[in-house]
Every structure is written in C-alpha cells, then in structure tokens.
C-alpha cells in the first residue's frame, strides 16, 4: 500500500466490497460509452473531414432512424435500471442495522466528535470498535449539521441537530481508518476529523474496560433519573413506568401508537406535551435547557437497561 498510488481507499467493512463492485460496474459502463463516443467522434471527424474549402454539403442526408433512437434509449434505460436496483439494495441494507449491533453514541459539535460507549468510556475524535461485529452509531449534533464519514467503510451519514440519525457498519480488519466531517460546518470543518480504530474483539474488550473508573452510561442515566426528579412520577405511577418500555409499542392519548425508541424518549424529555401516553395526565414538565444531549443518551441507556422484571399490571 505505501508503494502503490492509491486509487481506492482500503476495503475495511462488509459493505465496502459491494460498493466497490458497483463502482466497477458503473466504471465499466462509463468507459464503454465514453470510449464509444470518443472513438466515434474521432473516427467521423477524420473520415468525414472536409477535404476542400468549397466542398459542397452532403446530399441525401440521413436524419432519422427510429429503430436506432429506440435502441439507444432502451439500452441506457436498462443499464440505469440495473444501477438503480443494485445501489438501492446496498442503500436499504445500509439503513437496516442488525438488531444485535453494538451501539455507540456520537455527538457532533463545532468542531469535534464526542463519542461515548455504553460502559461510559468517552473519546474525542476517535472511535474504537471491534472487528467482525456490527456497530451502530446513534448520532446527533449540538449545533449545525455535520456528517460522520469513514471512507474505508464506504459509509457516511449527516448528523443533524435536534434529531438522531444512525449509520451502521461491520469492520472487517483491524487497522486505523480516517474519519472525516463531511458536511460543511463552519470554520473548523476541515479539522473536524480523526481516526476509527478497529481492533480484534479481545483487544477491544481490553481497551474498553481499561481506565474506566466511572459509571456506565446506564448507571449515569440512573443517577440522573433520581437527580432530576424523574423518579417522583415515573417511579410512583403518576407517569408511565420504564420497565420494558424500550422498543415496545406505546398507545398515545389521541389513539395512535408509537414505538418507544431513542427519538421518542428524547422528545418525551424535551417536549413532553407533544405525545401523551394514553391514560396519563399531561403534567410532565419539559427538561429543555436542563439536560445536555449526552445526558439524554445516558437516560435512554438507563431506560434500555430496564428489562421487564415483573408483569405489567394494567400499564399501557
């Protein structure tokens, strides 16, 4: 690699070969058609060059050939349809993280990446992940739109304020891969970059547990749950209980249902009156301005950790 003149980034994720193969197909089609046009132009320009200044214009000019028009409309249509479907398959796969994916949280802000692992370990401008394990990033921005891009994984996704976006990948080999911010975000945009460190699963475990003296995200969330007073309602029946809540379908007061995912929990904290759970009064105050994005993620982690331990008695 150091000696070669690189034309491609390393293929370091499970989706990278698929993307590259699609790229080869498009390049083959492009080279074919570009060469065809270039050669035809060159050939015609030479063969039919005007040989004398006063050479008359050609008579009996061919100006129409419907079969030809149809052919060179239909063949491109077929080719682009192939490109479309092939690309769509990859795109849809990219939008469906496996259910057992390892979740890591990313907060982008001008001009750095804050990353937090479930066990509370934090990093800045670096992301350590294990190889061979699908990793799902749940991301939000604290200010403007950013983009978390890892060319070696052939993956990127915008990071938007006030909502969560996700991307997932499964790294295939240990190594160090560039991480870029890929949505212009102001002065420090070009400096908002770092490295993704892919490690063997054992190394990753060792790294993950080393130097962590603090609490896991879920534990920090539990602390916040008490500190911020959530327990006074949600622990006493005045508000919906959290046991087994995450991932469950929730019935709302207007009759519709919603899945209790990250975005739902975040909205419930920041704008509680937007969606009221059926059977409960709309008395929850907003915590906007009182919790940071990081704290919201920690609270979410805590709620996720609450498996249903006893049967729900009449709770929605």
């Amino acid at each position, binding site marked *: 690699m150091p000696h070669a003149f690189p034309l491609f980034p390393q293929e370091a994720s499970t989706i990278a070969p698929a993307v590259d193969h*699609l790229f080869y197909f498009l390049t083959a089609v492009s080279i074919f058609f570009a060469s065809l046009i270039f050669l035809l132009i060159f050939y*015609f320009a030479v063969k039919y060059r005007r040989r004398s200044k006063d050479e008359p214009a*050609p008579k009996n000019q*061919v100006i129409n050939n419907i079969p030809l028009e149809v052919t060179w409309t239909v063949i491109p249509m077929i080719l682009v349809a192939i*490109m479309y479907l092939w690309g769509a398959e990859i795109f849809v796969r990219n939008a469906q993280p496996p259910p057992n994916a390892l979740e890591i949280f990313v907060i982008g802000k*001008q001009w750095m990446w804050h990353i937090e692992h479930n066990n509370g370990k934090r990093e800045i401008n670096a992301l350590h992940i294990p190889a061979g394990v699908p990793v799902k990033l749940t991301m939000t921005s604290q200010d403007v739109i950013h983009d978390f891009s890892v060319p070696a994984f052939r993956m990127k996704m915008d990071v938007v304020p006030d909502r969560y976006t996700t991307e997932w990948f499964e790294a295939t080999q240990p190594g160090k891969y560039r991480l870029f911010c890929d949505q212009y975000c102001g002065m420090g945009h070009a400096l908002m970059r770092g490295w993704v460190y892919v490690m063997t699963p054992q190394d990753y475990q060792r790294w993950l547990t080393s130097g962590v003296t603090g609490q896991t995200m879920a534990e920090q969330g539990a602390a916040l749950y008490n500190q911020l007073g959530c327990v006074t309602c949600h622990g006493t029946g005045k508000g919906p209980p959290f046991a087994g809540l995450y991932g469950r379908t929730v019935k709302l007061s207007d009759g519709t249902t919603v899945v209790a995912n990250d975005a739902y929990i975040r909205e419930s904290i920041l704008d509680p009156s937007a969606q009221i759970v059926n059977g409960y009064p709309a008395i929850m105050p907003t915590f906007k301005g009182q919790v940071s994005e990081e704290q919201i993620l920690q609270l979410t982690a805590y709620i996720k950790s609450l498996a249903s331990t006893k049967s729900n008695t009449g709770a929605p």
Partner: protein
Amino acid sequence: MSSQEIAIEPKLNYLNCDYSIKSWLLTTDHKRIAWLYMMAITFFFTVGGIAATLMRLNLLEPQGLLVEPETYNKLFSIHGIIMVFFFLVPSIPAVMGNFLLPMMLGARDVAFPKLNLLSWYIFMTGGSLVLYTVIAGGVDTGWTFYTPLSTLYLNTHVMAAAGGVFIAGFSSILTGLNFVVTIHKMRAPGLTWFRLPLFVWAMYAASIIFIIGTPVIAISLFLIVVERIFHVGIFDPSLGGDPILFQHLFWFYSHPAVYVMILPSMGVISELITAFSRKRIFGYHFVAFSSVAIAAIGFLVWGHHMFISGQSVYAGLVFSALSMAVAIPSAVKVFNWTATLYKGSISYEAPMLYALGFIGLFTIGGLTGLYLATTGLDQHVHDTYFVIAHFHYIMVGGAVMGYLGGIHYWWPKMTGRLYPDGWARVAAIIVFVGFNLTFFPQFILGYLGMPRRYAVYPPEFHTLNVISTAGASILGLGYVIPLIYLAWSLRYGPIAGPNPWKATGLEWTTSSPPPTHNFEETPIVTEEPYRYDRLAEEIHVA
C-alpha cells in the same frame, strides 16, 4: 470560410448607430443588452476565477499554502455564488439568448424590450450587493446556505449575499418570461414549432425553469434573512424549526437551476455541430423533446442531493429512480449529435473544437452523475471531490465550452469581425487539456474520500491536489487567450460579411453586425432548420 465576394461592413448597424454612453445604458435593443450582459458576466467570471485560483493555490499544500481556513471558506463560498448565479445561470441565455432569439425567430426584438433592460439593471443590482459582500469581508456559508449554519452560527455577510442572489433571481424570472412570450408570439410567418432551431427549443425549456423554479429559491433566501433578523425559528431546531426543510426548498430550485445552466449550452452545440458538419441534425424531434423532458423531469429529482441528509429511505429511492430517468434524454442527445457527424463534411474551426470537446466532457460528466444518483454509491462519495469533479465536468466541460463555442461562432455576427482562428484553436485545446488535468484527478480524490470544502487535508491526498492545481493553471491560460484575440479582432480582425460560416439560420441572412431592427424585411420561413443539403448558392448580403 472566406466569402467569394469582398465583404463590406454595412454602413449603419446596431453598434455604430450611436456611440454615446446613454444610448448603451438606456438601450432597449436586445443586441446591446446582450453586450451589457456579456461585459457583466465576463467581469463576474474573472472574480469567481480569481477565487478559484486562490483556492487551488491554497490546496497545493496539505496544511494550506496561502490562506487561513476562515478565508478559504469565504473563497469557496464566493466562488460558488458568483459562478452559479452571476455567470453560469445568465451566461448563454442572457448573452446569446438575448442576441440571437429574436433574430432566429425573424423578429425585431423581444416581446418586452424595456423589461429586458430592467432585467439587466436588476441583475447588476444583485451583483453589486454580492460584490459588496466580497469587499465588506465575505460570506462563508457555501453557495448552498445550509441552515442552521447560515441562520444561527455565522456572523459574516449572509444577508447581503442572500439578498444579492434574491434580487438577481428576478432578472432570471423576467428574462424567462420575455423569452417564452417572444417564442410564442413573435415567430416569423412560416416558422412553425418544428422549424425552430434547436437553440430556440433549448431557450424555451430553460425559460420554463427560470419561471417556475427561481421563485422558490427567492423564498428560501428570504426566509433565511427573516430568520436572521427576527430570530424566529423557521429552520432552528430548538424553536421547532426544521433545518432540512431549507434543504428541500433550496434544492427544489437549485437542481433545475443546473439544467438551466446546461440546456442552453446543449442548444448551442446543436447549432455548432450542424454548421460545422454541414448536416441536418439527426433526430430533430428527439433532441427537441429531450430538452423539454430534461426541464420537466429536472423538477422532480432535487432529493438526490439529500440521500444522506436524514431524509427517509423511501424518498431517497424515489429520487434516485427519477434521477436515472433524467439521464436518459441527455444520453439521447449525445447519441444524436454524434450521429449528426456521420457522413458530414466536417471542419475544425474553433467553435467545432469546443463543440466536440463538449460532447466528450459532457458525456463523462453525465456518466459520473449516474454514480451519484445511485444511492448505495452516493453514500460513499456524497460531499466529496467526486461531486465537485462531476459538476465541473458538466458546468465547465459542458456549459462553459458551449458558451465559448457559441461566442466564437457568433462573434462575426455580433461584431462584423473575424478572429484569428489559429489562436482560437490553440486556446480551445489548452482549455480541453487544462480542464481534464484539473478535474479528472478529483474523481479519484473523491473516491478516496477527500471531503469537499476542506481548507486543509491529510497528506495522502497531496499528489492529486498538486496535479489538479497544475491543470488549473493551464485552464486559466486557456481562458485568458480568447480575451486577448477577441479584443484584438474588434479593431484588426478581417471583416466577416453576413455569413462567414455559410450557415443556415435566419440570423445569418442579415448583415454582420445587423441593423438595429435586425431585418430589412420580415423573413418568411419555408423549410426546416439546418437544410445544408439544399444550400447550394452563396449567401448574398441582405
């Protein structure tokens, strides 16, 4: 190329009838207005080009050779804003469209000549505001003005820049309106729709886009200004606003805008290919309808700029499919132009070199658009140098080559003078070579992952950036040379005569330069365009 008879410059034409400044600044003659636009956009191209020069020089070093990131961000913003809104969008429509449209239709002027002049003044007002932005310290939003960066997080001259573009938009709208009415209402007797030159079809399609699309960007920029002044939360997520709504509104115009930039150029190419191969266009109806199809479908594909914006996957799939659809008419045109060369009688004057260069470069640009329309692939190359290479192939390799080809082709008509074709051919080749050297490496850079709008970059991208900058210096040279010999030709060029290229088209039946009222008598049209097969005699002076 030289006429058999001695060409005499006509006594009174639209240029020498009045030399006063007032006659120029208050003119309602579409031909003079075309010159006003040409001077203006040449100036803006220079400003945008200087910005590009500084950018490419800066990128010679990974750490940034010349400027701080803050300044670099202002440079790429102003490069984009000026090149898109003050060069590419007006270029062919406002210069060549204004000059040629009435002549190609056999008319004396456009439908609303005073509105035409007003358009130019509106354009200059918008342009002045943007120049003020540059002088006052610049703007660093990028030409895309994405929120909430542009509304909440920048304290550069965002409102002035947005205001300048907003105002200039009205110039486009009025020009589009003028052209549509002119084409509908002012065709010469016998000039049915399918006897129109393809340049006119291209102008028509572009005008539709002007009319329907421009107001949407006007409102988008207007809302940005409102949000900045009143601090309301239209795009501010903390106040309930949606930053992605801006992207939808912005791209709803800005995607059709790119078709505004390329369709007129395609129209020019149709004229050049036929004239310099002395052939009728192959598949006239297909080319004409393709222009309209591109304009229409072009309004439905804006979301392909937003595949990874947080937009839903379903929306992405729909936009991707439609984007594939819009590629087909462009391909059809390329094939038809190539087929036009078959069994032609081809000469290689500068306009033809530009036209042939266009076909090659536009083909590459168009094909690389497919990479971006393919969702799974776009997820890798979105917002990288791949995108930059793609759109420069279309904008510069396409639109600018068409513009230069058209300028060279119609220069004798506009000025009555011939330019030295040897120099022109050299310049065309320099542009072609310099262009490819500048932008082809950027495809590679993009696939390698280099993001766009980066003032500094990791060292592994160094070599390709150096190649690109070297190419840019050659490209720049290619642009400067025509300025010199074209200016020279105004004084010292041989007299052109009414039809130095022996081309068909109503514009060539009148003198060069034409009289103010274009035609001594209203022409009557009896056949389709490009009837080179019937062109046997010399064209006489009108």
